């Protein structure tokens, strides 16, 4: 029997999708149990499995015997607006999830890079936070728990559905940003916010240096914007660098923040408020801009080093397509570059105690550079041990470490 015939016998014809251009069979299990069944079988048979969400973020190009897509895991079993929590399957697109939450007056304060249909599982597995990380924290801060399936088909629950939980080790945080190396996320318990009653975006154009200083002034003034993002001209589709400030909350809070914004930047009047549809378009284009070019990575430095890190990127890989949160020290870069340059950049950054995480790239780049690639003293064996624990047969094709 071929792999496809075995999988069809196992999960039924409904689970078999049309193969991609590389003709790797694409399987879409319809339930978490079916994912466990498939991976358990793959482990026993020695199949290599690549995991895909909607196929809009990571290229579907890793060499594998079969592709497991989570796209049929698209249910939202629970939305609890009174508790501001929800439970969603990993294959639901963020756009669909947002709509279902908004219908109940709730909001997931996450705005990852990529297309609107990116799956929740992809966002969690890659921990790709967007500009809202400034006000609402990284992806892991929005997770109450996850259920995942290991490379040998075991279903594991971590965390729960309530606001605080210290029962057992926090495997949820291992999965957030694990790039699927420790299992396939099938179910996510989310912490929500109430849909903000006011949501405004102000933008200011200028030189990079000038805007970085203004961003620092805003942070120093004690303002807590939801997003405070410095965007390169090409990415913002403007002539100059743009500093975008997003304020969300009650009308009173937002009004107060707008006053504070003016005061922090020398009397106000310099920022331009975007209309609601303009603001939506601005943030959407920014997110989509990171899914267009071949390579995207993020780095995390301390806020005071933001300028220096932007200079370094400009020097080593160019700064045409960059978005940065100077007050949080987070920078995301996209463009086209070589393995050599990425490896050199990672080494340079490591010496500055700044991690570089490769978020997306073609397989040859991923496998050479690795999503993680650099560890501090002693951490490499721990990561390898965790990888062996959750994928003992190496069924999951993930380029964690590079060459």
């Amino acid at each position, binding site marked *: 029997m071929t792999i496809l015939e075995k999988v069809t016998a196992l999960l039924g014809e409904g689970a078999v999708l049309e193969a991609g251009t590389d003709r790797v069979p694409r399987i879409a299990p319809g339930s978490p149990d079916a994912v466990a069944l498939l991976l358990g079988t793959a482990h026993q048979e020695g199949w290599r499995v690549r995991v895909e969400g909607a196929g809009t973020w990571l290229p579907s190009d890793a060499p594998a015997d079969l592709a497991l897509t989570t796209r049929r895991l698209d249910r939202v079993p629970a939305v*609890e607006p*009174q508790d501001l929590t929800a439970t969603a399957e990993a294959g639901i697109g963020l756009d669909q999830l947002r709509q279902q939450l908004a219908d109940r007056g709730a909001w997931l304060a996450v705005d990852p890079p990529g297309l609107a249909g990116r799956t929740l599982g992809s966002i969690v597995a890659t921990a790709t936070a967007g500009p809202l990380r400034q006000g609402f924290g990284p992806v892991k801060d929005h997770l109450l728990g996850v259920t995942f399936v290991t490379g040998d088909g075991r279903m594991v629950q971590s965390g729960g559905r309530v*606001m605080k939980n210290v029962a057992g080790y926090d495997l949820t945080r291992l999965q957030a940003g694990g790039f699927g190396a420790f299992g396939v996320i099938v179910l996510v318990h989310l912490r929500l916010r109430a849909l903000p*009653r006011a949501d405004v975006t102000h933008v200011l154009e200028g030189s990079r240096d000038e805007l970085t200083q203004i961003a620092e002034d805003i942070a120093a003034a004690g303002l807590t914007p939801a997003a405070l993002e410095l965007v390169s001209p090409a990415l913002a589709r403007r002539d100059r660098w743009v500093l975008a400030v997003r304020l969300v909350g009650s009308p009173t*809070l937002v009004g107060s923040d707008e006053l504070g914004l003016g005061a922090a930047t020398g009397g106000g009047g310099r920022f331009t408020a975007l209309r609601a549809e303009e603001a939506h378009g601005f943030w959407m284009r920014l997110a989509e801009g990171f899914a267009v070019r071949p390579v995207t990575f993020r780095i995390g430095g301390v806020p005071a080093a933001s300028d220096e890190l932007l200079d370094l990127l400009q020097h080593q890989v160019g700064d045409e397509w960059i978005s940065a949160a100077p007050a949080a020290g987070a920078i995301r870069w996209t463009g086209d570059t070589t393995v050599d340059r990425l490896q050199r950049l990672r080494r340079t950054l490591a010496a500055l105690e700044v991690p570089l995480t490769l978020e997306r790239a073609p397989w040859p780049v991923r496998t050479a550079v690795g999503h993680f690639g650099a560890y501090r003293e002693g951490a490499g064996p721990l990561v390898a041990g965790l990888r062996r624990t959750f994928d003992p047969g190496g069924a999951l094709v993930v380029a964690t470490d590079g060459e």
Partner: protein
Amino acid sequence: MSRPTLTAALTSIVGPRHVRVALAERATYAMDGLPTHRRLPDVVVLPGTREEVIAVIRLLAALGIPFVPRGAGTGLSGGALADEGAVLVVLTRLNRILRIDRANRLAVVEPGVVNARLSAATRPHGLHYAPDPSSQSACTIGGNVAENAGGPHCLKYGVTANHILALEVVLATGETVELGSPSGEPWGPDLVGLFVGSEGNFGVATRISVRLTPMPRAVRTLLADFMALRAAGEGVSAIIAAGIVPAALEMMDQSCVRAVEDSVYAAGYPRDAAAVLLVELDGHAEAAVAAEADAVAALLKQAGARSIRTAADERERERLWQGRKKAFGAMGRLSRDLVVQDAVVPRSALPDVLETIAEIAARHDLVVSNVFHAGDGNLHPNISFDATDEPMRLRVEQASAEIMGACIAAGGTITGEHGVGLDKLRYMPLIFDAESLGAMHAVRRVFDPDQRVNPGKVVPLHACREWSGWTDPGRKPGVDQPRAVARGQPVLAQ
């Protein structure tokens, strides 16, 4: 190895003053903040530097002796107790604040730094360390990391895990590993997030980088009182559902209020109220905070608040908070012993669960007082009892189990900030299946293959499904023990 030989080896590392072997000295460390568990360590050692910690752990690794890291011993789950056969490594002498970086809003500290001392040191820089457990005047940052401690202001600012950027960890072997980075961005998977809350099972944090939070410029503190517990619970739900995120949202029931008011911590809470809510709002602008406080007051009135009082000044605010933070101490007046329980439920379930707890208390003829983080749904039912009264002690045990069962049935969990330790081991199989417990145990063995660090805590081995990649030939069903030593069987000759 004999105890004198081990003592001599430890003494050569830390000096004679910092190794405790006399029974009276060891008895000091036989309990933590929970009076229901008592374990006597074989030896207590207090290293004073990270180098001494490493040397001690390497010595214990070479000898195959289990050890238990301990901070100030304020924990409430029996998590920092060492059996005979284990060495207690007390970290309170590692109490230096190594660096405060105002520009990047971070500090680097040793594990024995007391929580409140860190905030006091950073306040002149306009910053503070946000997690504020009720024991913050005594508990240590290292202990906070081990337990993923919370506190009243974690509702808005997040728990310990949200504030730890990087760690230097000494593993059971004595090897050191560096986890995390100064920005909090991980090198690969989030091992800092995995380590925080691991209750000492993964090693000893010897250097901790924490995120600091700007001091709010405007603060409003409200005290609302209710004539029915359910109404207070509904007030909490109304605030959360309105999308308002107070800095803190705490509840105390009548029994707790009266204990506080009868103590030196009296805060002026109305003694006849069925419950009071302490709500704090903060931000950078006075007008916005005032407007939010007005909105909260209106919601509480709607929920049935009898009166709402706003702290007029910082002094009154401190008084209101002192009553809350010292409530556990005040409840010591009610009886000889007190069990502080910890569970979390969905916030909308609070009114029903509070009624269920009252019913359980009445059925077992026990006094249960509630003081808790209502905004997070994090309950702390406190059971007053006399541990010398055996029938009463058994009723407390039964009531505790029933309270946990009620919280789980409501969709909640067995601990929100105190940890599993010894006390909650028996409840773990109620919320995790054998596969998930097996996964936790397998992860623990990645960090500590011989299970020598804080053995017998967090994961009940008898309930784990075995995972490929490890087998434990010495393990017997129903026995939670490390391979190196069986509980209660000293490896050290006396």
